[in-house]
């Protein structure tokens, strides 16, 4: 019978070895800053939201109000100030956001890695067709001149009640003009007057707009040292009559 205990000894030894070897991995995650800033071009108004990421077992808090937020272009620097009304940082010495310029954002907050971000604003473009007050049908094509640096065109049909019907277009590098077919789903809208707003967006905005189509991704649209988006876009608008059969 004594020999029979050999397996028991072996089991005990193996169990101890496994228990020693099997310390579970602890959840190591260091929170980072989370930045949100979209520049409109041309304008001199911009805001920056400074937030943070959270560990899973950590309660969420408000936006960060005591960070150092600096926006710069090659010629000037603006240190933004926090406004509790919208929990955002606003310009103190506003920069002019102009087409085809590079802007840099730096956010410093004690206890977090410093975030740096960069965007290059898209170049100017024009809407060639339709012209203001033209009549448009769903078989028409919207034609734009090309915006240099634009990775993405994002637009809306906006009716009188301010209902938005979106559309988008990713240009090909060989495009000399941007041709965007009027979305087929406008069939389900109604005839009437619409504003068409089209935005030429930089690559960061493209990454931001695509975010969420895949799970498990971390949004880092132009941002290093943290998460979030720092992007720019330039908009054009035209007022048209949409005619549906």
């Amino acid at each position: 019978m004594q020999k029979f205990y050999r397996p028991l000894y072996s089991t005990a030894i193996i169990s101890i070895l496994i228990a020693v070897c099997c310390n579970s991995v602890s959840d190591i995650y260091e929170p980072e800053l989370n930045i949100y800033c979209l520049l409109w071009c041309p304008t001199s108004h911009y805001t920056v939201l400074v937030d943070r990421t959270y560990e899973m077992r950590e309660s969420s808090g408000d936006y960060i109000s005591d960070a150092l937020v600096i926006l710069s272009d090659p010629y000037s620097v603006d240190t933004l100030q926090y406004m509790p009304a919208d929990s955002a940082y606003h310009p103190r010495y506003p920069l002019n956001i102009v087409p085809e310029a590079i802007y840099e954002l730096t956010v410093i907050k004690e206890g977090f890695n410093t975030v740096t971000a960069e965007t290059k604003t898209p170049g100017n473009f024009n809407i060639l067709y339709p012209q203001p007050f033209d009549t448009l049908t769903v078989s028409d094509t919207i034609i734009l001149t090309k915006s240099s640096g634009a990775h993405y065109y994002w637009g809306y049909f906006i009716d009188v009640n301010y209902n938005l019907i979106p559309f988008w277009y990713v240009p090909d590098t060989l495009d000399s003009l941007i041709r965007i077919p009027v979305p087929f789903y406008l069939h389900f809208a109604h005839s009437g007057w619409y504003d068409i707003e089209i935005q030429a967006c930089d690559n960061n905005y493209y990454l931001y707009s695509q975010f969420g189509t895949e799970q498990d991704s971390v949004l880092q649209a132009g941002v290093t040292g943290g998460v979030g988006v720092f992007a720019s876009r330039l908009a054009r608008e035209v007022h048209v009559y949409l005619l549906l059969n």
Partner: protein
Amino acid sequence: MMVIVLLLSAYDLRSINGFVTDAANGEPLVYANVYLENTRYGSATNEKGYYVIQNIPAATYTLVFSYIGYKTVSLEIDIEARSITKNVEMDPAVIQIEGTQISAERARFEQDVDISHITFTPREIQSVPGLVEKDLIKILQLMPGIVTMHDLSNKLYVRGGSPDENLVLLDGITVYNPSTHLFGLFSTFNPDAVNDAELYAGGFPAEYGDRLSSVLNITTKEGNSKKLSGQASIGLVTSKIMLEGPIPNGSFLLNGRRTYLDVLVWAYSKIKKETLSLPYYFYDGIAKINFNPSPENRFTLTGFGGSDVMSFEESLTDESEEKIGLEWGNRGASLRWRRVFNPKFYSEILGAWSNFLTYFKYEDFTDSTNNMHIYEEIIDYTIKCDCNYFVNDIHTIDIGVDGKILKIGYNLDVQKLRLLDKEHETQLITGYVQDKWSLVPSILFVQTGLRISYYSIGNRWNYDPRIGLKYHFQPNSALNLALSKHRQFIITINSQESYFSIFDFWRPVDSMHDIPTSYHAIAGIEHWFDENTILTFEPYFKYYHDLLLPEEDDIAFSSPSESLRIGSGYSMGVDFFLKKSYRDIFGWVSYSLGYTRREQGGNYYSPRYDRRHNTNFVLGFTIPHMIPLLKNGKISMRWHFATGLPYAEDLGRYRYRYYNSVEQRWENKWVIIRGPRDAHRLPISHRLDLHLEKNFHLLGMKGSWYIDIVNVYDQENILFHTWDYDEDPPRKESYALLPIPIPSFGINIRF
């Protein structure tokens, strides 16, 4: 073939050959000892029960057949002719499960190059606790080198290989989706009909191929050739019946199994005039006929089939408005002809058909334009010839050829219009030669082999060498070595890392991709402490290249994906196995240490089935006489202890600001920062299962009842975590598959 036979017949043969079978039921006895008394001439039966003793001087001898658990047979023979054939039936004596097995294992240990080879008998299968229903695959999961994903998993992850890398054969028929019953919880194989199951966990010989990791070869019972007998049983989920008996010059076996809860619900519904129904059932069955027109010829016809059937009918009125049906299942048939041409040479020719069908239908009785039918089917036609030539007592050559036509079709019909109709067809022709040679008798054995295959897609020829070596450095100790190369021509396009999947979607490797290949290197030691205690210790390394793996996004679901990516990988580890029996007690301890890594696009990761430590402890014994109600009953237990599987943990969260165009305002939503897919591991899992069995006599029939309890001490082994984001901070919730001890019971009647 005839030329070979004639050449072989030209030799001067003085030998004794034949088959050794169990007198009670005609089943072949594997590794029975056969020898001429007071001489050095002797042999042992092979896996078919065949033996041959060669080069014997003409004289009168006493031929002895011995096998532990059976009465020894002695025959006086006079060898004057060139050869004598003696087929012998041995009568069972007092059968002791452990004794019988040890005897066969000892013969295997002494005579075979048998690396990473595990065999199971029905008694072992029946003696291990089962979850609701006994299952062969779940028994194999107790062996070293084999891990499972979770408590209910019915798949075999062998030494870091995924389930689709295992070749599964039932009487020579390739089974493509072996674990499909009850949504993947049970295998297609009814353990009552299984005679033995052998698993090559790696380095398998040249006669097997077309898989990267392992071979599971299941042989069903031959059928009782002596008398008509049967067995019926009823368990918690299924009822089973088996009939076997003699036919002129042969035997037959019929076996069937079906779930019955749907029938009970239907009957209750009829009696109570209610509309209750259970829209699911499964069934399977095996039929086998053996026919021996002469001692040299034997024909075996096997058929098997089974299906899982789901059917829903929806109605808001008294009449059905729509019907949804889903059916899937295996079926197959084989005809085997075994011919002993002369004592040194016998062959087997096998023709087999295998089919796996998945069928979905949706019928809208109010609007037939919505009707939809989807089906996917695998059809495998195989013809195979294996020849065994016994050169002399220490040298055997096996040669075989194998032709396979594989058709995979899938289509989609909507409103009688075929929207999708695809079919892949491929041919695979294989030849192999295998040489088993005892270079130094009883000390050094070498088994070499070469497998050559032609794959019709891309007209590719492949050469896969195999070599195995066994060196007995002590009478009770042997060193095993194996090196081998393996390929797989048919792959699955769904993730093998899913916790639950009913069946796989198979596709042939296309001409755009190289054929997935693996190399096995195994070095092990086998030691016998005494006749009842065996220890094996096997380190291994397995390298893969040209794997076709689904993308990571496909892990969570078993959805078909055409977006396979080329990958590579390796697995390595050590398997430890200690088996012991002592009087009425038997048991074993298996332990595996394994590392499995896969690579895609230059990134290495641990797949979800990479279990680092895996231990199983099995113990069975006869209940002592002092317990009156249960005396001579049997208790067995199984304890499982393993480290957790890797998974992607949610590490953090942050607010994502977006414009809600419907609400026309900016909003925030929480986005999860998920860690790497293998950075975290689930907690350690462990579980104890118990099995109690007691024989009884009823109306002249023998029977037994059993009780199984799974998860005796109510351990919650975590399968996955989720987070409740409605709370701040989010609350982590963990889910286990067996939240309570689960009992099951059943009764078997033998007649």
